[in-house]
């Protein structure tokens, strides 16, 4: 069973719908016991980084325990940003700090939020993005973004390069919305389901 963690950060029915379409057994939950029992975890999320506060209060330990035990984890949008140390959007709300660096707002030189389809440049060897070509278009909607780090497996250029996807061992994150990115997005979710 894949647990889709519901921590009050927006509408997550589309993630569940995409997993159902792929034939996966997915359950939307905010119950730490269900998270603990899941074989894989997806943490979606849109909106303000401060929403991660409720996640930190109730679900931080079970989610981090699951990650530590080697269960595949996928953070989407704010769910990926949470994997970093934090975000200037809500400095008082810590992230999981599994990846180094802090998320920050787009520079004033580009229109923000970044809404729509943009291209990713995929680094060779990504397991999550296996079968997704460089130059593929994915759907974004966000105002803050994560820096490019060693674990970055894809980046997008908008007001400079940012991390479109990160991965290390069993921990994966994507800033874009695979559940809204047509064929490329479904391929990514399919890869995750197959881990």
């Amino acid at each position, binding site marked *: 069973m894949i647990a889709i963690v519901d921590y009050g*950060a*927006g*509408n997550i*029915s*589309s993630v569940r*719908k*995409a997993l159902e*379409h792929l034939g996966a057994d997915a359950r939307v939950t905010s119950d730490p016991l269900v998270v603990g029992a899941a074989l894989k975890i997806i943490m979606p999320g*849109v*909106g*303000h980084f401060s929403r991660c506060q409720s996640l930190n209060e109730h679900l931080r330990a079970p989610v981090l325990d699951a990650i530590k035990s080697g269960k595949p984890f996928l953070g989407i949008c704010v769910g990926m940003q949470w994997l970093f140390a934090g975000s200037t959007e809500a400095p008082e709300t810590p992230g999981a700090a599994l990846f180094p660096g802090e998320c920050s707002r787009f520079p004033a030189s*580009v*229109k*923000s*939020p*970044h*809404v*729509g*389809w*943009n*291209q*990713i*440049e995929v680094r060779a060897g990504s397991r999550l993005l296996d079968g997704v070509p460089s*130059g593929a*278009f994915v*759907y974004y*909607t*966000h105002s803050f973004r994560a820096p490019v780090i060693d674990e970055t497996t894809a*980046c*997008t*250029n*908008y*007001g400079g*390069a940012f991390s479109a996807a990160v991965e290390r061992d069993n921990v994966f994150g994507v800033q874009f919305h695979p*559940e*809204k*990115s*047509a064929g490329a*997005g*479904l391929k990514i979710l399919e890869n995750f389901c197959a881990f």
Partner: protein
Amino acid sequence: MPSERLAKRIIACLDVDAGRVVKGVQFQHLRDAGDPAELALAHASAGADEIVLLDITATAEGRKTLVETVRRAAKDLFVPFTVGGGIRTLEDAAKVFAAGADKVSINSAAVANPGLIGEIAGRFGSQAVIVAIDARRRTEQADTAEVFVSGGRTATGRKALEWAREAEERGAGEILLTSMDRDGTGAGFDCELTSAVSASVSIPVIASGGAGNAQHFVEVFSVGRADAALAASIFHFGTQAVADLKQTLLRAGIPMRWPC
């Protein structure tokens, strides 16, 4: 590194009355050309970057079908999906989100109760709230355009540019701007009005009303500075229409999601 160019979006709009798409549609290979679920999928497969379902049902009885229509249309749709028409409260919005919509478009209800924008944005995020503005020019000047509500029947006395700015401040994630002067004419988008609204807000502006040919899209993305363009009837001539349109736009140097 890919070039720094966010693709401009082509949005297909389905006008739905009591659960049926009402404009003349000539998609091939469809069992039922008036079914919103089939048409939404057909448009997405044909290359539309986003789908908008606009409920224009006049009767309360007919409206009851909306949530079920949304659920069926959303089921296998994996591009952004917006639902508008008759969403008056946070509860109305919550129902269509639960049925699978990614965004709601609010129009008259937002003008009557501007706090609704922040209520929906607060719960579902700004990215999930599109404020739709139906505008008609009062004089030759684009900045005189006035906001109309109730399907264009009622003037509000409000200026479109000011309302767009207020909507952004209140938490709207995008503006869907329909030119009533151009809507249904096929004479092209109101690029001057679109450009004026686009310059007055920092959120994306979706242009609507007047699309008649591919050149009109080139103009609204260049001169009109639109981030997305929405049309209904232009896509109803067959499944090749969106791909052909995108090819024309790419040749004109407009960034598009391709292949799609």
